[in-house]
């Protein structure tokens, strides 16, 4: 058998079935007053629910870090001495390298490297153009086959062609032009 208070609470919360609700409402002396009280109670409940939410912490990691530093300072020994604190510290260290921080660190390092590389490259003197031309390192004609052969090397202005000009080779008949 439920007490009146239990039935009242269930009625306010809407947890009575149809028969119980009808019976309970019939037992009320002043239905209008009871309904007003029910509304007030529900309103108060909603307000409390809204106001009693825990405030989200703005800078949780910083807070943890500060807290651990303070524990260390006050205890006078490294927090690693305590297994629990060591675990928390390891977690703090682990959590410092978040994906976002890692990305920022990487991007910043890359930017610094690019700027440095640009300065280094900019101050480098213009490379000798011949570095990018084909170079003949040596050329040798068999003196027994072509005793009067001479070799000279030059570059054309157009198309940057390097020419190895060999004179004095034995002239050959047209048949040697066969494919």
């Amino acid at each position, binding site marked *: 058998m439920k007490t009146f208070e239990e039935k009242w609470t269930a009625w306010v919360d809407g947890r009575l079935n149809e028969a119980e609700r009808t019976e309970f409402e019939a037992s009320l002396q002043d239905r209008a007053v009871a309904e007003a009280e029910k509304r007030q109670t529900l309103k108060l409940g909603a307000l409390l629910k809204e106001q009693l939410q825990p405030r989200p912490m703005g800078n949780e990691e910083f807070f943890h870090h500060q807290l651990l530093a303070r524990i260390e300072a006050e205890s006078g020994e490294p927090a690693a001495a305590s297994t629990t604190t060591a675990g928390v510290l390891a977690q703090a260290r682990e959590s410092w*390298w978040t*994906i976002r921080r*890692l*990305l920022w660190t*990487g*991007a910043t*390092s*890359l930017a610094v*490297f*690019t700027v440095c*590389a640009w300065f280094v*490259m900019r101050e480098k003197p213009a490379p000798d153009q011949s*570095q*990018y*031309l*084909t*170079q*003949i*390192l*040596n*050329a*040798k*004609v*068999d003196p027994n*086959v*072509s005793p009067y052969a001479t070799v000279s090397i030059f*570059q*054309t202005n*157009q*198309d*940057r*062609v*390097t*020419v*190895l*000009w*060999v*004179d004095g*080779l*034995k*002239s*050959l*008949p*047209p*048949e*040697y*032009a*066969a*494919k």
Partner: protein
Amino acid sequence: MRLRLLVALLALSSPLLPGAPARAGENVWSGLVVATNVTNPKPPPPPMHRLTRTLEHTFGYNQFELIGQSRKTLESGEENWLAASKHFSLHVDAQGAMPDGYRLKLELFQDREILLETDATLSKSSPLVIKGPQIGSGQLLLLLVVQ
């Protein structure tokens, strides 16, 4: 996950590093060409198109006929190959990739007789032309181009 991110960042930065050697997979075209002067010159073969004016101006001929050629894709930069015609052959021995091309040892043979030996660094941006022996009223030219 974080290691992968670091590797990705390093990979992104690698193209910025200077001094990368010539890329593998580049083609080196070698051609044996007979240059002549004729009334109605034939058009040069496609690999020579961009060099024709320079060759005309440098050697004084108006027709360039290909009598032998070879196109080699360099993977390690240490391959060797032969471009040959009936009487001439050009043996090319690549001896490594340079910052802007390849180190080559070249040997020109007439039948079995060696006419010329040379060592060169062939640049990607600079073709090599070798003036060979006179053939009839024309001239043998050897061409090497990184494509």
